[in-house]
């Protein structure tokens, strides 16, 4: 199942500048694995040994996966994933 993933500006160098890419997988974790094969290096920017990095949030629709089932959050057809990193500019 293909899911649209929104890529934030700081990670776009890894996706050839694209702000939306698609990836396959039935869970958020599987989608990230597939993203890694398509855009090597992106997984390390999103995850560390403990899971999603603590200055990055991954949303399915409007919900933060930390408050769903984390990387095990299952995806339904039409779900969109948004990667929302902390930004600090002022």
């Amino acid at each position: 199942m293909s899911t649209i993933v929104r890529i934030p500006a700081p990670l776009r160098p890894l996706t050839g500048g694209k702000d939306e890419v698609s990836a396959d997988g039935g869970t958020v974790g599987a989608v990230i694995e597939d993203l890694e094969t398509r855009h090597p290096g992106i997984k390390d920017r999103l995850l560390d040994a403990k899971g999603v990095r603590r200055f990055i949030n991954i949303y399915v629709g409007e919900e933060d996966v930390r408050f769903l089932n984390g990387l095990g959050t299952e995806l339904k057809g039409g779900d969109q994933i948004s990667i929302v990193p902390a930004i600090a500019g002022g």
Partner: protein
Amino acid sequence: MAPTTYTDLIASVRKEVKEVSLEELKRRLDSKEPYVLVDVREKEEYRAGYIPGALSLPRGFLELQVEQRLPDKTAKVVLYCAGGTRSALAAKTLAELGYTNVETANPGFVRWKDLGFPMDTPPQLTEAQRDRYSRHLLLPEVGDVGQSKLLKSKVLLLGAGGLGSPAALYLAAAGVGTLGIADADVVDASNLQRQIMHATSRVGMAKVESAAKALQDLNPDVKVIGHEERVNSSNVARLFNEYDVIVDGTDNFPTRYLVNDASVFLGKPVVHGSIFRFDGQCTTFVPESAAKKLGIASGPCYRCLYPEPPPPHLAPSCQEAGVLGILCGIIGTLQATEAIKILLGKGDLLVGRLLTYDSLKMKFRELKLRKDPECPVCGPKPTITTYIDYEGFCAIG
């Protein structure tokens, strides 16, 4: 026979309307019974004092404005004036307009005052202020009471840069009485692409001084306090304690986390804005400690959203990043709007909601923010109880 004189008219009206005594009105006020109290006297009389909670709807504007101000025609309404005559006439008019639950106080405010019953005095605005803020005064959500609250309020702007510039200008224009500006930098020509509070003629001047000039020229009602210092663990409490609302327009992660922790420790609401290239984020953090004081709902904090700052090597490379100048205007004015709403106690705040804006796609999105039960600072078992000075890294200013 139709009444022919004033005396006849009043006598006939008094028979038609339902009257309520001042003692009964006082009892209802004390027991907080739900009803709408309307003062139908002229604005000048109302300004000299009114019964607490009354809204002002002068009889001359009654028919014109009542349906907008009191849309529920079945609501319990009590009208009063100075002696009971004008309010009786007004009650008859409301009945003719279809209001079914209208009473009129007898006598009226003059006697109420003599009895020593409670009264409020609306804030005294000068003629110049009535003129300057007239478009606010026309809004029932602001009005004399709200404008006066703004004039007595104190907002601290962290950063007089991209976000702080538009936020400060609008807060000053709105008549927020005291604006603190914390910034240690001087105006640089490269700032002017986005930092619209400053000016070419003030390049090289301390930003707090340049800000004071701009804001006081815009609105001399506003007292501008410059804090020419970088916010750090040793001064954050002193700075925050003087203010009601904090507008965070800082430019680096260490300060963002420090601001959050101080907000939780000191019970201050923080309106957060941040920008990167073409993207912006805005949300409002109201920790429980602040919510109690303000009587508004609390929500998650910045650490519930992002528990820890990125290490310097993974933080977006700021020097190379760049930012669309106008983006600052969008996010900074959103922040100012939130600050004003907190001060007025009106509307729905961005508490528990992260508003993201992509200026290239021209899309706003809203993401849910939840309180993290394991939040290291605002959770039930906090592990962070003192200020942390994180390793500093780049700033785009």
